[in-house]
């Protein structure tokens, strides 16, 4: 029997259990209500149904989960006990390969054997698999029936089925909310673990402060020393994400927010705000394609025409410009919120003194809203330095420590993609370096987010 079929069978049993238990509880309720005490039944019939159904399903499912982990080794033991396995090499890699091949043929993943020894083991494999599979199914069904029967005998007017079922529901809800913690721990643990392996090969100080990045030379056997200096990557990331992108995004985002909140007619605002928000919803791979195919060549031609040397078709400027546009809605909506949070009295006061709207905005609103705006900008920077596809497609791969926006630079995220796509050996410094870069990225974005939230929060309290 296949996995889905067994699950369906168990599910069917569960439904049957639900229906029969509910029917029994309904009968009990009718008789109980006819008795001297009205409402003598503690729980509604459907809760009894759920209680029995859960007792039917959960033991069977748990058993199946355990069994699917135990079964392969049982099957292997059975195959090894088979007379056909006598001629196998004793232990080690060769034996594992033959067993693996036989398993693949038996399960239909492979058409024919390379090794005749494997062919001989196919039949024992099939026999053992089907034998243990049948045992598993029978045991699961027995468990389901046993659980269901136990729960069924407990259906009584005073049985608190609802409490039991609700306790399980609460447990599930709590379990779901723990997944966020597990994910966070998983991220930190996997990044730390792989990074520690990396730092056992490469000196962390060299990684953080070295200025030469050439993992390829390390992979080709020139040694790890001096190949993993990540400073050019950090610089490229800051140059694109925190400098060029922000030069585009801050003025455009801030002025858009000012115009839409202070000048635009409500109808214009109603249309323009969602349109600007589309900019944040466009997939980054589209921006990357656009930057690489349209913006970058145009910028290179422009740079060549004004006589700049070293203009590359993959440039920091192309990636940064497009990323800045992507970030506009973040800046503008944060600015929008914090301008709206400035008390109306301050604005009215300034206008009443005879200031024009623009003077009010420049001298009163923006200074008052500044912490919120700064928080928004920090969040935008955190977003920009974690952005991957635009820089992968438009920024280039050359680790340059340059101030020239027309030259190619590389970033942390580009290098992570570059190091992990391609040949994958998981013990080389080259692939592990990606995790170290990921760890740096994680820590930096985390710090930026914490600081940004602090700034915003502190500012909000000022007017309350």
């Amino acid at each position, binding site marked *: 029997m296949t996995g889905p079929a067994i699950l369906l069978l168990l599910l069917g049993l569960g439904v049957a259990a639900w229906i029969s238990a509910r029917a029994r509880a309904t009968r009990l309720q009718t008789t109980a209500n006819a008795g001297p005490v009205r409402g003598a039944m503690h729980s509604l019939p459907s809760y009894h149904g759920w209680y029995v159904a859960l007792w039917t399903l959960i033991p069977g499912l748990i058993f199946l989960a355990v069994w699917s982990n135990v079964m392969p080794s049982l099957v292997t033991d059975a195959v090894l006990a088979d007379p056909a396995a006598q001629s196998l090499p004793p232990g080690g890699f060769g034996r594992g390969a033959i067993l693996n091949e036989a398993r693949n043929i038996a399960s239909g993943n492979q058409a024919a054997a390379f090794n005749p020894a494997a062919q001989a083991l196919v039949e024992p494999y099939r026999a053992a698999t089907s034998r243990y599979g049948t045992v598993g199914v029978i045991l699961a069904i027995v468990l389901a029936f046993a659980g269901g029967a136990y729960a069924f005998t407990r259906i009584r007017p005073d049985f608190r089925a609802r409490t039991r079922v609700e306790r399980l529901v609460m447990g599930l809800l709590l379990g779901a909310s723990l997944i*966020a913690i597990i*994910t966070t721990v998983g991220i930190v643990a996997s990044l730390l673990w792989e990074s520690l392996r990396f730092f056992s090969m490469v000196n962390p100080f060299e990684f953080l402060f070295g200025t030469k990045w050439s993992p390829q030379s390390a992979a080709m056997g020139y040694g790890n020393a001096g190949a993993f200096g990540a400073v050019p990557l950090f610089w490229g990331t800051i140059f694109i994400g925190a400098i060029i992108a922000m030069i585009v995004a801050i003025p455009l985002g801030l002025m858009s927010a000012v*115009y839409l909140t202070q000048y635009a007619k409500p109808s214009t605002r109603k249309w323009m705000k969602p349109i600007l928000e589309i900019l944040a919803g466009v997939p*980054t791979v*589209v921006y990357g394609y656009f930057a690489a195919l349209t913006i970058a060549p145009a910028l290179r031609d422009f740079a060549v025409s004004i006589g700049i040397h070293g203009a590359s078709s993959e440039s920091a400027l192309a990636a940064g410009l497009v990323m800045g*546009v992507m970030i506009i809605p973040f800046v503008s909506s944060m600015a929008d919120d914090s301008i709206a949070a400035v008390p109306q009295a301050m604005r009215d006061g300034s206008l009443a003194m005879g200031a024009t*709207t623009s003077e009010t905005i420049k001298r009163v609103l923006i200074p008052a809203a500044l912490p919120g705006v700064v928080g928004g900008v920090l969040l935008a920077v955190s977003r920009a330095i974690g952005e991957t596809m635009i820089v992968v497609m438009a920024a280039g791969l050359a680790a340059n420590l340059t101030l020239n926006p027309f030259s190619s630079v590389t970033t942390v*995220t580009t290098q992570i993609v570059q190091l992990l796509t391609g040949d994958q050996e998981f013990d080389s410094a080259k692939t592990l370096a990606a*995790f170290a870069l990921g760890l740096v990225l994680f820590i930096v974005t985390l710090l930026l987010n914490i600081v940004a939230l602090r700034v915003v929060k502190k500012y909000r309290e000022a007017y309350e």
Partner: protein
Amino acid sequence: MQKRIAARYASERRFKYLGMAAVLLSAGFLAFLLFKMVGDGAGGFTRTEVAVPIDFRSAPLVIDPATVNAQALSGANLQGVTAQAADAALGEGGDAMLSPNAWLTVRDAILDDPKILTQKVTLSLPGSTGIDLAAKSNASAADEAAYTRLQKAGVVSTGFNSAFLTASDATDPTQVGIWGAFKGSLLTMLVTLLLSFPVGVATALYLEEYAPKAWWTDIIEVSINNLAAVPSIIFGLLGLAIFLNLLDFPRSAALVGGMTLALMTMPVIVIAGRNAIKAVPPSIRDAALGVGASPVQVVFHHVLPLALPGILTGTIIGMARALGETAPLLMIGMRAFIATPPGGVTDPATVLPVQIFLWSDEVSKGFIEKTSAAIIVLLAFLLAMNGLAIYLRNKFEKRW
């Protein structure tokens, strides 16, 4: 004084126009992007076809028109017949002017109407990459010359490229399609939705309705807010380290892609869900509790149904973000060349954004319009999803 007021008013106008310019510039960039993609990609939905007369009466085919089926035709030498007919009609090298899978069109024509096997018919067959490029933009001199010759003979036309919607990835740009990537996207989204929606809603319910104020609930809150701001590529690293290396799940599979994206989408759903649940007025909870409902009944019978539209809106927005995501999927190996649509969630698959990324790397010029056409499809889907979310929000928005 007058002068100073005039200067102040002028500065006021300048400032206002500056704001307007910022808005227009941002919107203009979006318009330019969409315009450029549509302009580049429109050609991807059409193809250049060459009319080729085929005389089946003299063709060396042994097929009985009464019992024609796709299998029998694949065995018959339709490639050879097509090539011969092309050479005969278009002169030496005529076969090279047709797409390598032009014979599929012949096969479909026979399947449509087996009677043509006893006739001489003229079929519109897809042209080769070179001919297609020559018709739409500029190609190599040889292709341009061949195209001019065909044009003079009056046999070229433009037709709807249905293969683009039904085929999968290929090495030749005339043969590529988005169906494989689209199906991969659907499967990945399905896994993402099935995992992130129940978990997200359950988390939101727990935190908003039941969680005691304690240090560990604070940790849950902090980690959810933090996960919502973690760069997506970090989730890719997590998927690679945990799902692939530790748990040994299949590489490039929609299952792993979906699980990775689900971890990313879950915080979005939780945050939207909490806001929706918070918006349900306490009086409803009090009333339900007052008539004897248990806390679980209050939530599942009253609060959740009322909060569901808001949760759904947040879910759609989260799914739209997951649909456009590329970087984490590159990490878990979904960048392989995959020419057959995935049959299940454990088969190697690719998704639309990754397909766009892969095509954008191709050197062949014919891929440019295909990439843009795929982008049009992706953007259309995202706009539809976001439109649906806005519609739901407007329809179900309640002021209590």
